[in-house]
């Protein structure tokens, strides 16, 4: 230092000035850096390497500024034109006025440059508000506030407060009281607001009333802000980069730190067909017509529950049974495209609830009226110890159950429904009164809003006897589950006086009048229906049912057919999700259920079943972990489980071991051509392939002296087939549309014509 001073031409005073100047510069720069706004940009959507399907997708960008700067502009850039180009721009208007209560207030209280907290204003009013209203709602992070509220005279001991408020575009709401005090409230801190608001302000409250005066002092108020902006822009099919530039009020402009890639995929939802309104218990079809290239699965997301749709060509469909559903339900489609899942927009379906119950003030459309008579024709009343009614619209598997108990005897019982359609209903009603034993009525009816009247008959305690029928097979075994129906004629009308099924002992008991002729019918699948006309004077009868003609009751494969896809014995590609399905049909037996269980290397990996007698069931499975898949098919008839022939599939990984193949070479070439290599376009690829074929055919013809046009065209056809179908390298548009394998078809037709022409010569 001494040496410097010795050699310096500056005088000591000059040195001091220089040192002071340097210090001043350092402090100035430090102060500048301390207030320099920090601007950060992040790209939210599309995320990196995401596939978008819309030609006009939304780009979502967030930007955050600190230290009081405000965001002024978002600019979207893509490289679709070959260079990074501005494709869309959105300007952000900053706050519009200082304060809704004091529009003439000249002070900017969002002033982070003022690190001294110099007093900005004093307000003599009893309450003062200072803040900002924004042009659009934005995320406000930390709010820096320094304010003092003072009640100076006339109201000693008055409560004084500093309150922060937010504006939602319509009204101001107090968020929290930052400070309170007697006569004086002071707040000097950073408050974490962390919310989306359209404005913020600080309210200073003092005492009011005669003689009171205040001296409110605002010093500074500042905030950080984050704005999330969406920009729509047209995009072309392909793979491109995008980024966004954001500028702030300090004229600082920043890009997101890394470009993102978006891929415009080839997927178009041509139509989505469904009923916007429907009813509970109905069966609804959802059909999506989708054009795409790499779509592997479509799932119906119905109010949060996913159902795999079945595919046929461009159509993806799912049939859903509405069971206990009502209200507005959301629907959307989940596409599995090139291994990634994407969602469609939401659709909505409004479901009208269908109920059936005893009529009341809320349910007044009468569907069923039960009335009661004695068998002698006298009208009576009855209680219902138990009534169970199953009802459905058209698909019996979608049903509801209504149970009703009423120990009070009534002459009629009305049942009402909210269904806009006819209802199928099966009831099982136990009814009785004090003078008659209980009977059971069972019947299946079609009910409409035109009331169906049913009369249920009772028989007095002194007029009947209990008669038990036991049903046996021809070899003396009790038969359970036999449907038994007892009828008699009353006033010229055949009425049911007893109905039910036999128990495990093959027995059923009715309360019958022995003085009248009754007709009893005994029926069960696999047995000959037996009809008995009698005056039931005994307490027990035995009925023997013979087997139906030509039918072995144990022939549980009679009328059973099923088709399984994929065909048994084929080899399955492990890299795909496989749809295992079975179309099952039972033309003879009524099944308890049918289904299949799928095993992967002996371990159960999936199953499905149905309680119908016929139908289509499926299961989508990932089989990548298994070498062998097998399926066990079963169906259950009258509790007996019957198995189909076990069969299965072998699996194979078609892509394993192809890393060094010629196919891999051409696959990479195709990929690189798509991504861009030396500016190679599809037309250039087509031209190179044409030259290769031309040279090869020409050389072969010359070398081997081939003069037959058919043979030459045959060689050309083989090469075109190899490059077009085998390697997929040729892509030709015909009148603006891409026709798959058009070159192969075209050369093939020429070859056929040439062979025919040569044969006819």
């Amino acid at each position: 230092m001494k040496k410097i001073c010795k050699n310096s031409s500056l005088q000591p005073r000059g040195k001091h000035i220089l040192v002071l100047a340097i210090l001043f510069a350092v402090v100035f720069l430090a102060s500048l850096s301390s207030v320099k706004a920090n601007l950060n940009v992040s790209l939210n959507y599309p995320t990196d390497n995401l596939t978008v399907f819309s030609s006009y997708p939304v780009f979502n960008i967030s930007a955050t500024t600190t230290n009081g700067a405000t965001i002024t502009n978002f600019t979207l850039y893509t490289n679709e034109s070959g260079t990074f180009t501005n494709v869309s721009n959105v300007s952000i208007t900053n706050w519009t006025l200082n304060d809704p209560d004091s529009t003439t207030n000249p002070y900017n209280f969002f002033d982070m440059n003022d690190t001294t907290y110099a007093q900005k204003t004093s307000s003599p009013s009893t309450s003062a508000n200072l803040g900002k209203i924004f042009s659009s709602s934005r995320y406000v992070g930390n709010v820096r506030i320094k304010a003092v509220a003072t009640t100076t005279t006339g109201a000693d001991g008055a409560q004084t407060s500093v309150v922060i408020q937010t504006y939602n575009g319509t009204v101001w709401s107090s968020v929290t009281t930052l400070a309170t005090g007697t006569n004086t409230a002071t707040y000097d801190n950073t408050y974490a607001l962390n919310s989306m608001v359209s404005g913020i302000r600080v309210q200073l409250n003092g005492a009011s009333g005669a003689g009171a005066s205040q001296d409110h002092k605002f010093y500074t108020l500042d905030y950080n802000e984050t704005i999330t902006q969406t920009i729509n822009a047209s995009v072309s099919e392909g793979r491109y980069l995008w980024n966004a530039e954001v500028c702030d009020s300090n004229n600082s402009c920043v890009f997101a730190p890394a470009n993102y890639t978006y891929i415009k995929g080839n997927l178009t939802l041509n139509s989505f067909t469904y009923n916007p309104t429907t009813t509970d218990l109905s069966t609804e079809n959802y059909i999506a017509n989708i054009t795409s290239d790499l779509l592997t699965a479509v799932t119906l997301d119905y109010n949060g529950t996913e159902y795999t749709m079945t595919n046929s060509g461009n159509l993806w469909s799912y049939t859903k049974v509405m069971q206990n559903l009502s209200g507005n339900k959301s629907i959307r489609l989940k596409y599995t495209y090139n291994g990634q899942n994407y969602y469609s927009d939401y659709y909505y379906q409004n479901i009208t609830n269908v109920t059936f119950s005893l009529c009341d003030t809320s349910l007044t459309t009468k569907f069923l009226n039960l009335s009661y008579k004695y068998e002698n024709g006298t009208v009576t009343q009855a209680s219902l110890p138990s009534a169970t009614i199953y009802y459905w619209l058209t698909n019996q598997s979608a049903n509801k159950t209504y149970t009703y108990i009423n120990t009070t005897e009534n002459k009629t019982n009305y049942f009402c429904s909210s269904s806009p359609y006819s209802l199928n209903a099966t009831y099982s009603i136990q009814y009785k009164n004090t003078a008659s034993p209980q009977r059971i009525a069972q019947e299946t009816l079609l009910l409409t809003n035109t009331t169906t009247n049913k009369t249920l008959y009772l028989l007095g305690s002194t007029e009947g006897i209990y008669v038990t029928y036991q049903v046996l097979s021809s070899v003396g075994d009790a038969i359970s589950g036999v449907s038994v129906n007892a009828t008699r004629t009353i006033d010229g009308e055949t009425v049911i006086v007893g109905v039910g099924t036999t128990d495990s002992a093959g027995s059923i008991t009715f309360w019958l009048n022995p003085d009248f002729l009754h007709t009893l019918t005994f029926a069960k699948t696999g047995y000959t229906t037996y009809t008995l006309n009698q005056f039931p004077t005994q307490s027990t009868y035995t009925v023997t049912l013979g087997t139906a003609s030509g039918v072995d009751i144990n022939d549980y494969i009679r009328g059973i057919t099923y088709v399984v896809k994929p065909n048994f014995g084929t080899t399955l590609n492990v890299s795909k999700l496989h749809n295992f399905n079975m179309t099952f049909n039972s033309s003879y037996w009524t099944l308890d259920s049918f289904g299949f269980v799928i095993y992967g290397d002996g371990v159960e990996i999936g199953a499905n079943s149905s309680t119908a007698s016929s139908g289509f069931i499926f299961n989508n499975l990932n089989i990548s972990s298994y070498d062998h898949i097998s399926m066990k098919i079963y169906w259950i008839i009258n509790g007996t489980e019957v198995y189909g022939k076990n069969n299965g599939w072998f699996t194979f990984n078609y892509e394993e071991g192809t890393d060094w193949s010629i196919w891999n070479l051409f696959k990479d070439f195709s990929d690189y051509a798509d991504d861009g290599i030396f500016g190679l376009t599809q037309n250039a690829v087509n031209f190179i392939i044409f030259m290769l074929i031309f040279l090869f055919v020409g050389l072969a013809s010359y070398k081997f002296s081939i003069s037959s046009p058919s043979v030459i065209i045959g060689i050309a056809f083989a090469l075109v087939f190899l490059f077009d179908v085998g390697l997929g390298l040729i892509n030709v548009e015909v009148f603006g549309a891409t026709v798959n394998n058009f070159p192969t078809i075209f050369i093939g037709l020429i070859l056929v014509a040439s062979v025919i022409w040569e044969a006819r010569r």
Partner: protein
Amino acid sequence: MGVVLAFFFFMFGMLLIPLTKDGVTDARTDIGCSTNSSISDGAKLTCLGLDAGVPFFIITILTLAGGFIGSQLR
């Protein structure tokens, strides 16, 4: 003699294939042939050359072996 040479070249070539495959795999991984779509055009061309390595090595071996046997049959 031609058959013996053909057998020799065939066996020798088959023994070299695993080494060639490993070399190709290492080179492709280092360049990022499969994982990075933003590699340079030159790197892409190198990848295509590497892709062609093993198939053409096999074709060369079969051609040599077939040539030796064919010359013997003349």
